[in-house]
């Protein structure tokens, strides 16, 4: 059975100018221990999906429809009190710019101990030894527990925040741009370590990133998001080798690589749409080279074009990259 099933999730932000259609009809499922990646540009709704899963939404956000089934329970319907027990204990998160999410006036270890004691009935000493264990897991010296955040480097803070996300042995960790602010050498080490820990404890992991190169290396399955929709979802190799949605194809060929032949980067005309008034029909049609009248009139559904390969497009492309 799937660990997490998101069905037709729709979430809008109320603003003075009207509703922002941030997440519209997003559906996907995750198996236990699976690593999936959500990629897309800023404003495509990938972080909003993550925040909706944890119900950490700002006051002006409204979940208008759909369900989030986690271990058979619909998280949308849980009360805030019940949700608190799910958060961190079952689903935890590594936030974007995690280095700024530590409290500067508490010792780092103490902050993690607090998180553990909130959810598990363990003594201070047990919590401490647990933190030390997790410090070792993420490659930090346990002696650093009693230091303050300003005494950590950027990479160390990121490791500490990952240790905090691991602290209650959750079933699912959501990592929102976990290494975006870090230098490549540090990023590489941290991603390798997360992968090892994930495999060891069979944790499910949802990576959210704009960087398709990072996602290619860490995710088993990828969902490509555009303007609040998942436009394509498949296993990582299919998405990279046989992308079918014109947006995915454009995204792939807009990325320079240090490997392989140097090729001309494809340019996508225009800019992502304003989600206050998204385009009619397919949201990608104003920028799509294959758009027809059908695309303007009617929104495509996510359909399976190959085993496990879902595309939301009236004219899915068949080509290998």
């Amino acid at each position, binding site marked *: 059975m799937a660990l997490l099933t998101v069905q037709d999730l729709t979430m809008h932000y109320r603003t003075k100018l009207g509703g922002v259609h941030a997440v519209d009809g997003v559906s996907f499922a995750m198996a236990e221990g699976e690593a999936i990646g959500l990629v897309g540009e800023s404003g495509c709704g990938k972080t909003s999906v993550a925040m909706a899963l944890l119900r950490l939404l700002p006051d002006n956000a409204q979940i208008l429809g759909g369900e989030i089934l986690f271990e058979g329970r619909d998280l949308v319907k849980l009360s805030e009190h019940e949700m608190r027990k799910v958060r961190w204990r079952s689903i935890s998160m590594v936030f974007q710019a995690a280095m700024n999410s530590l409290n500067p006036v508490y010792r780092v270890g103490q902050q993690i101990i607090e998180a553990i004691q909130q959810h598990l009935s363990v003594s201070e000493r047990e919590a401490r030894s647990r933190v030390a264990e997790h410090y070792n897991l993420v490659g930090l010296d346990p002696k650093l527990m009693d230091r303050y955040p300003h005494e950590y480097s950027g990479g160390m803070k990121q490791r500490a925040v990952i240790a905090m996300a691991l602290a209650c042995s959750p079933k699912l960790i959501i990592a929102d741009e976990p290494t975006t602010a870090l230098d490549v050498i540090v990023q590489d080490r941290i991603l390798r370590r997360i992968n090892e820990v994930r495999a060891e404890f069979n944790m499910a992991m949802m990576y959210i990133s*704009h960087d398709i190169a990072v996602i*290619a290396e860490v995710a088993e399955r990828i969902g490509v998001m555009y303007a609040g929709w998942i436009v394509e979802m498949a296993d990582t190799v299919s998405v990279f080798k046989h992308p079918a949605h014109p947006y995915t194809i454009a995204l792939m060929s807009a990325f320079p*690589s240090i490997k392989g032949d140097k090729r001309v980067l494809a340019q996508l005309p225009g800019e992502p749409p304003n989600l206050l008034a998204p385009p009619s029909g397919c949201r990608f049609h104003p920028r799509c080279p294959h758009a027809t009248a059908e695309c303007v009139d009617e929104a495509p559904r996510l359909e399976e074009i190959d085993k496990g390969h879902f595309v939301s497009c009236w004219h899915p492309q068949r080509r290998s990259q």
Partner: protein
Amino acid sequence: MSENGLLTVAGLSKLFPVKKRTYSLRVRNFIHAVDGLSFSVERGEVFGLVGESGCGKTTTGKLIVKLLDPTAGAVLLGGENTASIRRGKPLRAFRRRVQMIFQDPYESLNPRFTVFDTVAEPLVVQNRHSVAERERAVAEILVAVGLAPPETFMFRFPHELSGGQRQRVSIARAMVIHPDFVAADEPTSMLDVSIRAGIMELLLGLRADLGVSYLYITHDLAVARYMCNRIGVMYLGKIVELGPAEEVVQNSLHPYTQALIASVPVPDPTYHRQPGEIKGDVAAPIDPPARCRFYPRCPRGDKQCEEVSHPPLDELQPGHFVACYKASAQSRG
């Protein structure tokens, strides 16, 4: 290195004073942000400076455009030393030839200036154009950077533009006086992927059309490979490897460059990278010892590297310079 380059940097250094204790009276320590840098940029060339945060690449850019004054060394523009240029007419003449594009288009544009005000500002400062000429020049450059038709953009404010459009405006501001040389500091790193390719192509197109040369500063080796003719890899204020872009990326000789390249994720799930061999973390270059800067992290370093001073850039292959005793010894057999 060639003597007839457009811009030559010779032994350029910048030290920033640091206090070890907050209340100490005398400054005894210095961060060696840029330390004895030498390279030259040819006319019409894109020269890339790559490295991790804190390696001194942005400081180098600021020294070249005279936003900072060097502690030692010189920047020569067309053979003339720019050190004596301080203010007034000579500085204006210098700025007419040398411009800069900044990283963050959300911070580098004045929010109270319209696009026209921003792009016309260099012309106003230079004070060599009539109002009609200014209007024509601004309209022309807006079209050139892809903000067409110019009338629809000229009177907008930055908050009415997207990130990609803002960066186009800051490129237009740098290009409107047709400079010879532009230092571009991470001009695409704040932008989304689908927008980024467009800006990179725009910069390359302007080079072809206007004959401008770039110093392209970036942390992203894949971007540097795409944009640059030659790349200099920096580590703690020193260039450790310098050569043609493809050479440096495909056939790197310095252990730091090799580790850096081994750490760059590849957008191909069927490709399996080997982890780079590199130890520890970057330390701040506060009064560093004379030995090779990379020695504490180097997988190949030995007693010899520890005892002698930082290695000089050595031309191991035509046009490919490396500052590493081990790489030099290896290439000589």
